[in-house]
């Protein structure tokens, strides 16, 4: 900024400032509206009962289905959403692994590929995990499978939210 502000510059700044103020007043509500999902907090999930009894949990992973109820914007499926967890006992403790591959979110399956016995296998990019959920080094996933929190009540398995890693 040198010496005096010319009349032309003054008008340019005044006009530009006013126009910018008006434009932002118009754009702010629309942008805020569009980014609302980013700023919304996800609802915490509760424990859900499953059909599996404590006695049925063995050392080898079994797929357990459970149903969660959540609202997706304006839509909530009346029958809920069916989810799966791989449940087994490890050193006497119940482990429930999420079937969502940590590479790019496909679904892993236990012991589904004859080439990789006793591993979780993801068909999308051949991601592999050991039984305890640790990713096999050298395969696409960079992290172990997520674990669900679990509870046993009245001899029945309950599945809660995912554990924070």
């Amino acid at each position: 900024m040198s010496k005096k502000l010319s009349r032309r510059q003054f008008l340019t700044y005044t006009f530009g400032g006013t126009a910018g103020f008006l434009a932002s007043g118009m754009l702010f509500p629309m942008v805020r509206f569009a980014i609302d999902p980013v700023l919304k907090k996800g609802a915490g999930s509760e424990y859900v009962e499953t059909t599996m009894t404590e006695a049925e949990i063995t050392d080898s992973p079994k797929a357990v289905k459970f149903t969660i109820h959540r609202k997706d914007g304006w839509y909530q499926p009346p029958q809920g959403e069916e989810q799966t967890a791989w449940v087994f006992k490890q050193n006497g403790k119940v482990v429930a692994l999420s079937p969502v591959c940590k590479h790019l979110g496909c679904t892993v399956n236990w012991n589904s590929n004859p080439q990789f016995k006793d591993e979780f296998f993801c068909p999308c990019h051949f991601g592999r995990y050991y039984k305890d959920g640790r990713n096999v080094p050298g395969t696409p996933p960079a992290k172990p499978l997520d674990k669900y929190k679990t509870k046993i009540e009245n001899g029945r398995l309950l599945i809660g939210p995912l554990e924070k890693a």
Partner: protein
Amino acid sequence: MLRAIYDWVDERLDITPLWRDVADHEVPEHVNPAHHFSAFIYCFGGLTFFVVVIQILSGMFLAMYYVPDIVNAHPSVNYLQNELAMGAIVRGMHHWGASVAIVMLFLHTLRVFFTGSYKHPREFNWVVGMLIFFVMLGLGFTGYLLPWDNKAYFATKVGVEIAASVPVIGPYIATFLQGGDIVGAQTLARFFALHVFFLPAALLGLLGAHFILIRRQGISGPL
């Protein structure tokens, strides 16, 4: 900084003539409210365009949440209005803007009429303006159905019945508008398509023609 970026681009692409041709032109004294305050009546055309820009922008944002389907249309509108931040404002802009656009367009038409600006050699631009008017009414009519509430449903039913009263081709027009025998799932889908694709495209084309003709023929002289 901005200046340097502009100069860098301008040196290569010579963009200055492009915007100068659009933005830099004489405004005659008789249409400048700074000279004669009554000249504000010449602002209505520009205001109509400004409101149209707001309609396009707010409509684009509404389309991020709206679903054109008879099961989800009303719940999605209810959601975007009541459960999203600023939803009532963005939908309000589109709702009130729709009326304001028609009002501004009407005032602009009155100004053109009473200043005699439609006369030789500008007859053709009057025709283009009338086409814009009908497209805008079409946008209003198709947009009214989209919330899929009772008011929307019966307004559309009435509108379709009016169209059906046209001699000979009336029933065909009604079936075309409904996409079937009733105002229902297919009507909502095609009104949505008309509202967000066909009519806005027609509107932008006509507005382009309108503005090119104004620049070709100049603003009509003082009374």
